[in-house]
């Protein structure tokens, strides 16, 4: 069906009726739609749009340490931001981080989902294992990874030296820190992504595979021509959500690297957090938050614009 219906032209079944009743019907349908939406819209309004508006407001002010506006700043925060080398650095780190984590997470999770999606014994247990990482909070997972990365006693370096490699200071070297955090993040995100993709796979009508098998299609061809297109709504959803999440990464950075070394992992949200909650510069933190909002909005818009066209809805 067509995704984009024009909001104000009456839907086709009613086209035969007069304009007036059509308008009434439109009104009635609008009211009915709203009944379903009110709980969501109300909560979004209070807990998301109001703070967002507040953030926009603060971004053009200087603030005191309590976050109260003191003096109008105009676009000063934005100008300062664009001139700040750390801002561009942080932007680069954020994009790199997203590029490192999103495709890898989706591909690995898809592979795992395919592995489990077979009629064999004991799949239930593997399914639980693969989904298990979503049961851990970022805090817990980060603490564990911190231990594994520890250059002196961590298990990763111990394994490395056991096979003859030389120890690496994973989180302390600006060249490896972002990769190390990305690896931990991929591990943390696999659980949910896997579960979502698996659910998508299970929803595919098995009879479609039957016809593919009859024509003697190879496993890989079947994957490309049947599975991927049918899974595309889920894949689309998973990539969109993962991308947004990646652009908003915070917890693991706070635990593992504090944005260091030499700002190598100073991703956007962490920079905002530090500006607001450690340095109490709410004005400039708000400006950064607005910039981040715009960036994510742009990325998501492009995704909906271009990627969703390729999505195949039944």
């Amino acid at each position, binding site marked *: 069906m067509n995704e984009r219906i024009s909001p104000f032209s009456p839907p086709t079944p009613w086209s035969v009726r007069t304009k007036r009743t059509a308008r009434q019907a439109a009104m009635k349908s609008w009211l009915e739609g709203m009944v379903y939406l009110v709980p969501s819209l109300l909560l979004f309004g209070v807990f998301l749009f109001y703070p967002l508006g507040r953030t926009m407001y603060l971004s053009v002010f200087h603030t005191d340490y309590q976050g109260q506006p003191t003096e109008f700043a105009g676009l000063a925060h934005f100008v300062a931001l664009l001139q700040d080398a750390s801002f561009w650095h942080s932007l680069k780190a954020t994009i790199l981080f997203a590029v490192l984590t999103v495709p890898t997470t989706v591909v690995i999770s898809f592979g795992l989902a395919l592995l489990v999606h077979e009629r064999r014994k004991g799949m239930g247990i593997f399914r639980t294992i693969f989904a298990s990482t979503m049961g851990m909070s970022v805090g817990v997972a980060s603490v564990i990874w911190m231990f594994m990365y520890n250059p002196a006693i961590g298990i990763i370096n111990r394994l490395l030296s056991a096979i003859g490699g030389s120890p690496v200071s994973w989180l302390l070297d600006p060249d490896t820190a972002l990769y190390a955090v990305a690896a931990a993040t991929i591990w943390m995100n696999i659980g949910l992504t896997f579960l979502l993709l698996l659910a998508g796979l299970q929803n595919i009508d098995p009879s479609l595979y039957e016809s593919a098998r009859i024509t003697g299609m190879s496993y890989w061809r079947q994957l490309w021509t049947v599975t991927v297109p049918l899974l595309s709504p*889920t894949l689309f959803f998973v990539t969109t959500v993962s991308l947004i999440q990646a652009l908003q990464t915070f917890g693991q950075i706070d635990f593992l690297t504090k944005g260091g070394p030499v700002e190598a992992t100073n991703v956007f949200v962490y920079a905002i957090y530090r500006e607001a909650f450690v340095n109490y510069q709410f004005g400039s933190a708000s400006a950064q938050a607005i910039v981040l909002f715009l960036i994510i909005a742009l990325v998501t818009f492009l995704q909906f614009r271009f990627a969703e066209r390729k999505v195949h809805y039944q």
Partner: protein
Amino acid sequence: MRTARATAHYVLLCLCSVVILFPVAYALLMSLMDGAAILSGRLWPENWTLVNYEAAFQQAPLGRYLWNSFFVAFMITLGRLIVSSLAAFAFVFLRFPGRDRWFYICIATMLVPWEATVIPNFLTIQALGWTNRYVGLIVPFWAMAFGIFLLRQQFKQIPHELYEEAQLSGIGNFRFFCRVVLPLSKTSLVTLAVYSFLDAWNMYLWPLLVTNDDRVRTVQIGLKQLQTQEIASSWGVVMAAAVIAMLPTLLLLFAGQKQLRKGLMQGAIQ
């Protein structure tokens, strides 16, 4: 040939499991060691001990925290399922002016960096008098773009002919929603429920801000309470608390998985 393939399949599955499970196992093993053994970098405990668990329960009221976490996570999950499925239903099946615009507005909320909303939200909760109460921990999380988006993607898979048939035979929208849409979407609902529960279970900063009282605080705060900077943290105790906090969620996942599979079998759309 067939057995060879099956063997290869299982070997691959086991390898992946080892990689995925390793950090969890590592935490579990560390929670069963004493401090000196952890700091010497051992992997396998020499002397198994439960002292860390005793210490964890003594240092923070973890029992109470666990119950609070459970209650809060459960209520958030329930609310989210209802609020999100209603909205998703409207976005997929109902036709009304401005529908897509509203959808994009909902999706846009996903873009708001959560950190930017914390302080204003805290002040709102304070103004409502919801600090130190469960309600302040629960209600702000009911609406969730992720949930609406997930369910929308699921509902779109339901053939539209079903809806048209229902309309023709005079079945109202809400009945169609309860009788047809929800049962057909069990998988996604369970997925969302599991996700919401875990998400809520793992909250830290928000509960810390809006509560002062042990009677409503949640288990992640307890975890943080066991870690220090200036004085060496007892990592065994921290890991024990982590395992305690992790266990219910892993159990839930296990239970949810079974439910998931059942739902999948019934939910196959013909």
